[in-house]
């Protein structure tokens, strides 16, 4: 008998191939330590790209730092930046523009999205094809959508003005969606509704499909009318999903930047200057870095608060 018999399994051969020093070192580690070694790179990356900038922004928000004057002395101003933002009528106006945008997009997307979901749920001939067609706007990049709708809103050559004039009889060049103070806030609402209604429709469709058929069968046995079934079964049971869609779209639209920036850049004047556009102007046009950091923290806390409500709603939907 000699000791040079070939190892029986692949694992044993792999163990023998490992250099003895490494093997000994790894053998000395606990499972917990090995787990930490595996997740450490992710934690370091998260700290570097998420937590560190956040902490730095919080620190900058209490200073008068300006990024275009890196050698100027940085002074601690306490909560002055926060006080200035929260008493500034111009920033309050930007918040109201954001509120107009968020409110009307949510109302329109919820009503149209739920109606589309209810129709698609009827399972008519070709409903799969129409679902795909309806989902196309959601798949496009906001940059593409912004540029695309800029052309559609052109008063001379844009399709939107001709579409409106076909139904109303108004001359196509008699109104300007992007250039008009009254119409520009509605122009961004229309584009966001066009793009994101399919998303709301998908969530509502998931809600409608989760309602068991036997509830409708029991309602029919009790001779409930279709309208009664809708108000007493469909709407209450789909409500948690609708709330989820409303919260998600609310959070997304509260921090909307790309599409509005490409479409109107906050104009004409400041009528479509939503909060994120104001933030960009303060940070990279006026170079008030400390001030804009404080503004960013205010927006972050608001979105974080809304996200907490969103997670709570999501847990409620999961429990169903």
């Amino acid at each position, binding site marked *: 008998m000699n000791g040079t018999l070939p190892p029986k399994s692949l694992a044993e051969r792999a163990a023998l191939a490992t250099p003895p020093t490494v093997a000994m070192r790894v053998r000395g580690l606990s499972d917990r330590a090995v787990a930490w070694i595996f997740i450490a790179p992710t934690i370091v990356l998260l700290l570097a790209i998420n937590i560190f900038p956040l902490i730095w922004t919080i620190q900058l928000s209490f200073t008068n730092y300006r990024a275009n004057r890196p050698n100027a002395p940085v002074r601690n101003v306490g909560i002055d930046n926060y006080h200035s933002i929260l*008493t500034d009528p111009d920033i309050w106006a930007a918040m109201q523009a954001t509120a107009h945008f*968020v409110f009307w997009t949510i109302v329109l997307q919820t009503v149209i999205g739920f109606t589309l979901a209810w129709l698609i749920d009827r399972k008519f001939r070709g409903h799969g094809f129409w679902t795909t067609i309806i989902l196309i706007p959601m798949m496009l990049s906001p940059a593409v959508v912004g540029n695309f709708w800029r052309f559609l809103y052109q008063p001379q050559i844009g399709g939107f003005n001709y579409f409106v004039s076909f139904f109303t009889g108004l001359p196509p060049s008699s109104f300007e969606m992007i250039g008009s103070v009254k119409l520009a806030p509605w122009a961004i609402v229309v584009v966001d509704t066009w793009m994101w209604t399919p998303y709301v429709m998908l969530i509502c469709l998931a809600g409608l499909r989760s309602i068991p058929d036997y509830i409708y069968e029991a309602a029919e046995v009790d001779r409930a009318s279709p309208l009664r079934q809708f108000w007493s079964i469909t709407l209450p049971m789909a409500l948690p999903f609708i709330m989820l869609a409303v919260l998600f779209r609310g959070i997304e639209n509260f921090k909307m930047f790309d599409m509005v920036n490409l479409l109107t850049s906050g104009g004409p004047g400041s009528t479509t200057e939503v909060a994120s556009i104001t933030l960009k102007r303060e940070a990279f046009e006026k170079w008030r870095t400390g001030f804009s950091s404080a503004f960013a923290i205010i927006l972050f*806390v608001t979105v974080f*608060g809304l996200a907490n409500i969103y997670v709570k709603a999501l847990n409620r939907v999961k429990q169903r």
Partner: protein
Amino acid sequence: MSIGPANETGSSGRGRPRFFRRGPWEAVAVAVIAAGVLMLLQPFSLALYSYSFVTTLAGVVLFTVVSKFPE
């Protein structure tokens, strides 16, 4: 050993008083956050707008704390 209805400490509270239950406190925190967001976005009063951030921050801190409470 007592088997019966939950006592003052609650069935899952492990010694904590019933006052510190997650459900109602989370509802309060959500209401405070929602009030803060509405104050931030409303067009009626600059004073309400001024106190919106403090309200939202209070709601967020409250939510973070009470989410550690037992069910």
